[in-house]
């Protein structure tokens, strides 16, 4: 019974996920190292990759700060309408990415009621990444903050520690693993983002074109080896970040 179940599960998982993903690696290696290098160093592609990685890093840093603050407010503060904020946080998770792009366009596009015209610029890439990655850090930090023992903080405060010192010495260390995990998820998500950019960024070469758009154009130009090369690079970048952050997390956890 167990063997049959395991067999079916592994068969389906392989057919759906493992074999297709390894096909990307195999197609890249079939093309050879020279082809891989030529593809990812083409000026247009190299620019797209640089923009994607830079924007993903910057947005992840913003999320680390903003996400922690928002989680803090949701757990420790109390005010009317807080339940609504809880719901708003989850919207980027649930909203289809193409709708996310349309949504952002309505406030930051050419008909912006704020007079902002961010569409078709590199700023729009940052904006879209910020939107789709919003929940990751918040939702990782929130439960940890809820479990945090208030007695320790009170002890620190009664011994004369300032709020900032209490935060730095007591709260921040216990939040670090959760923040790191949220950051990893948010970075990986941003690196591969596509849908929310389609309408918002205009995908202009050397301006607002990201790596996944380059993959798509390679597919459309019937260049699977090229597409697989960029895809492999993306897979490697997200894998590296996830491993690095996992190591940090383990270190912090073992120290504490």
């Amino acid at each position: 019974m167990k063997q049959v179940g395991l067999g079916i599960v592994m068969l389906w998982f392989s057919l759906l996920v493992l074999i297709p993903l390894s096909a990307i690696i195999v197609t890249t290696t079939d093309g050879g190292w020279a082809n891989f290098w030529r593809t990812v160093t083409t000026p247009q592609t190299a620019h797209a990759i640089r923009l994607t990685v830079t924007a993903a890093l910057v947005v992840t840093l913003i999320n680390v700060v903003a996400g922690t603050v928002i989680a803090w407010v949701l757990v420790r503060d109390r005010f009317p309408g807080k339940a609504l904020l809880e719901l708003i946080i989850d919207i980027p998770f649930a909203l289809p990415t193409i709708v996310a792009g349309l949504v952002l366009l309505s406030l930051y596009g050419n008909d912006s009621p704020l007079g902002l015209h961010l569409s078709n610029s590199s700023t729009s890439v940052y904006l879209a990444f910020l939107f789709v990655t919003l929940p990751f850090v918040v939702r990782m930090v929130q439960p940890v903050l809820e479990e945090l023992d208030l007695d320790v903080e009170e002890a620190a405060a009664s011994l004369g520690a300032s709020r900032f010192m209490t935060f730095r010495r007591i709260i921040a260390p216990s939040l670090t693993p959760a923040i790191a995990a949220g950051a990893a998820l948010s970075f990986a998500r941003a690196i591969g983002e596509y849908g929310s950019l389609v309408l918002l960024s205009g995908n202009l070469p050397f301006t607002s074109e990201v790596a996944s758009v380059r993959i798509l154009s390679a597919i459309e130009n019937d260049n699977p080896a090229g597409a697989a090369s960029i895809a492999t690079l993306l897979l490697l970048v997200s894998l590296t970040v996830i491993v690095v952050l996992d190591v940090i997390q383990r270190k912090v956890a073992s120290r504490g």
Partner: protein
Amino acid sequence: MAESHLTRHGRSGPVTYLLRAFAIVYLLLLVAWPVALVVTHTFDDGLESLRAVFSDPDTVHALRLSVLAAAVATVINTVFGVGVSLLLVRTEFPGKRLLSALLDLPLSVSPIVVGLALVLVYGGRTGWFGPTLESWGIQVIFSTPGIILATAFVSLPLVIREVVPTLREIGIEQEQAALSLGASSWQTFWRITLPSVKWAVVYGVVLTLARSLGEFGAVKVVSGNVLGETRTATLAVEEKYLNFNASEAYAIAFLLAGVSVVAIAIISILRSREKKASS
């Protein structure tokens, strides 16, 4: 309880208000205001744009296709997800940790990469299995099965992530009691295990449905976007917007956004109810 609540919210000074203001303004500018604008844009001409959507047969077909793909993908992922969760929590086998790590992969892979991966394997001309399947009369890429595969791929871990922690939490005492009283393992599953993870499954299903309905990038790569055939609702939003039919794009976006907001509202209501019941 009441006392700890007081201390928890006790130290409110200027910093508290500053942080609160930051959180509210940030979420307002990034999410709430833009989403509200899409809703108002949809109803700029009253119900006209929604009526236009439902009277265009191609758009209705796109909506139907999205619902069909999402429904099939959700059924597959629910059966698969519950099965995998049981294997991961209740049994031991070599490579279990690796499998558990790999199961999260679909969440961090770019949708475009997902689409490419499926095309490389199931593409009709040059894919690994595509030509063979095609000789049996099964077309995957540029057809409905491809859309279903792409959708199932991107939403694969959602049921598992809900069910695994709950299965761990409930333990095995009741199951063992049932088995020792002579229930078959099938009976134990239906009578004991499934009812106790019921809510986790429900959350997983709702999340999977919402995610599946909204998939765009992966579906775009595998579907070929053929009008009236393999065009889904999210692809229709793009096409309408780029063809200067913004009002219908907003209307379809409104329908999709409505489903996702209802989904997260249902989950948050159920969760808070469950919390109250358990406390």
